[in-house]
């Protein structure tokens, strides 16, 4: 690991100022940062440790808005009975991710900003990677393996997949993130935080240099309580998603009044499947309508050789998640 300077400011303004310096990067739990620094994918001159900002560790799920501090730990939130009860998909998206050891240090803010697991991005022996080295090409698309890549929201410059799970529970339920920086505080819809690769895959979010995510806020809706996060993994546990879905449903009698569907493991950014949601609203929730929603969720998927399997798998996961929620609601 290349050497760097280290600071641990106690005030958010100081942290933001330090992080705005060129060559500086923020570290929270460090499970993405230290990993990428070790393998030389990132080499900051300065690390700004934000763990001194202890105000950001709290969270609250009561009331009409859930609020999660950016420094709340994945394990703490996942295991909280109040979270499990009020928003099962959120708890599941956290405990089905990474490992217990990682979840004990990884923070919610760091989690949403984790980097792609594209093997060529992660291996500096490959010169071609537009994300790591803008303009160099894409080793995945130019003769490489594309089995861990995005079939939704990719571009001809980059098909890296956004690997996080938690983000799918957030985007499905209209989360917002509060960020603090030189320009003061602003609130960004979670769906606009990440940007698709387009021609500049090195730009991954709309955050300005030095901006710190302080809080994640979610409006409470009835579909949250009837939600789940289903994750297909190659190993039973402790692997990134091959395909996953965060879903939530609210019924009005026999018909669906609200439905949320977001897809993990398949897209370049956190991905809300709004067309699939539209197909279900006002309909009964049956095996057939669930399957149809799964199919529609992948209608716009690109054929990508190594990842073509994700289309059928992902559609099954969406349908399976919807049926799981239905059976939990006490439907047949």
């Amino acid at each position: 690991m290349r050497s760097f300077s280290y600071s641990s400011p106690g005030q958010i303004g100081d942290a933001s100022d330090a992080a705005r310096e060129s060559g500086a990067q923020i570290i929270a739990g460090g499970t993405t940062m230290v990993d990428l620094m070790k393998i030389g994918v990132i080499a900051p001159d300065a690390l700004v440790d934000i763990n001194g900002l202890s105000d950001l560790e709290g969270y609250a799920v009561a009331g009409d808005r859930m609020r999660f501090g950016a420094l709340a730990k994945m394990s703490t939130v996942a295991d909280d009975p109040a979270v499990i009860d009020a928003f099962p998909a959120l708890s599941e998206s956290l405990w089905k991710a990474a490992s217990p050891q990682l979840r004990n240090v990884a923070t919610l803010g760091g989690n949403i900003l984790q980097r792609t697991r594209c093997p060529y991005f992660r291996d500096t022996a490959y010169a071609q990677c537009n994300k790591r080295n803008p303009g160099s090409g894409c080793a995945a698309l130019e003769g490489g393996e594309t089995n861990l890549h995005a079939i939704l929201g990719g571009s001809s410059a980059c098909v890296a997949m956004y690997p996080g799970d938690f983000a799918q529970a957030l985007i499905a339920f209209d989360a917002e993130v509060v960020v603090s920086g030189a320009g003061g505080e602003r609130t960004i819809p979670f769906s606009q935080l990440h940007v698709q690769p387009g021609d500049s895959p090195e730009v991954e979010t709309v955050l300005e240099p030095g901006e710190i995510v302080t809080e994640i806020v979610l409006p409470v809706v009835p579909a949250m309580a009837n939600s789940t996060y289903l994750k297909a993994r190659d190993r039973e546990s402790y692997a990134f998603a091959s395909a996953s879905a965060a879903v939530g449903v609210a019924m009005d009698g026999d018909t669906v009044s609200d439905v949320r569907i977001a897809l993990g493991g398949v897209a370049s950014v956190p991905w809300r499947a709004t067309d699939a949601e539209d197909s279900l609203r006002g309909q009964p929730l049956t095996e057939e309508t669930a399957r149809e929603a799964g199919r529609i969720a992948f209608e716009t998927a690109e054929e990508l050789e190594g990842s073509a399997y994700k289309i059928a798998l992902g559609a099954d996961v969406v349908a399976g998640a919807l049926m799981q929620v239905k059976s939990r609601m006490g439907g047949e």
Partner: protein
Amino acid sequence: MSETPPDLTRPGVSRRGFLQGSSAVAGSLGMAVGAAEAQQAEPSADARTIALTVNGTRRHVTVEPRTTLVEALRDTLGLTGTKIGCNQGQCGACTVLMGGTRVNSCLTLAVMAEGTEIVTVEGLADPTGDLHPMQAAFAENDAFQCGYCTPGQILSAIACIEEGHANDAVEIREYMSGNLCRCGAYPNIVAAIEQVRDSEQG
């Protein structure tokens, strides 16, 4: 799934090849040690002395910002019971307890552990030499073969019970999934954990 780039000359590395993939990770247990230690070049001007409580004793260690906790424990404090396997957060060989919770010491910067209490495998037996119940249970249940993963497994197992995630074998497997064992001692590890859980409840 293996995250190292697949061999481009070998078409169709199947996503179903997950057993291959995970054994590739486990197969690197122990092999990254040299590489990690070889990196300690040019000392930085930013070296500093931090205080850590390790196995109940307050220790001062001089580290660079880039020194990981496992390097501080092994190289500076000479506590080599904590192992380095993958060095990337995937295998759990480096598991220690930090502030009472299990963490991967290979992904923790030592400077960020300043002021915390660390427990390593060396701190488990009591001063008279009696093994910790989990160590004894691992021995009784043959919960290891080569033993490389064992210190990490034992610390993780203690935390698994402490967290309340050892209610049945399925839950134990899920909550021990951050500790890989190249030798495949998993059934015996689960048995050891169940034994300790039951004796604590009884």
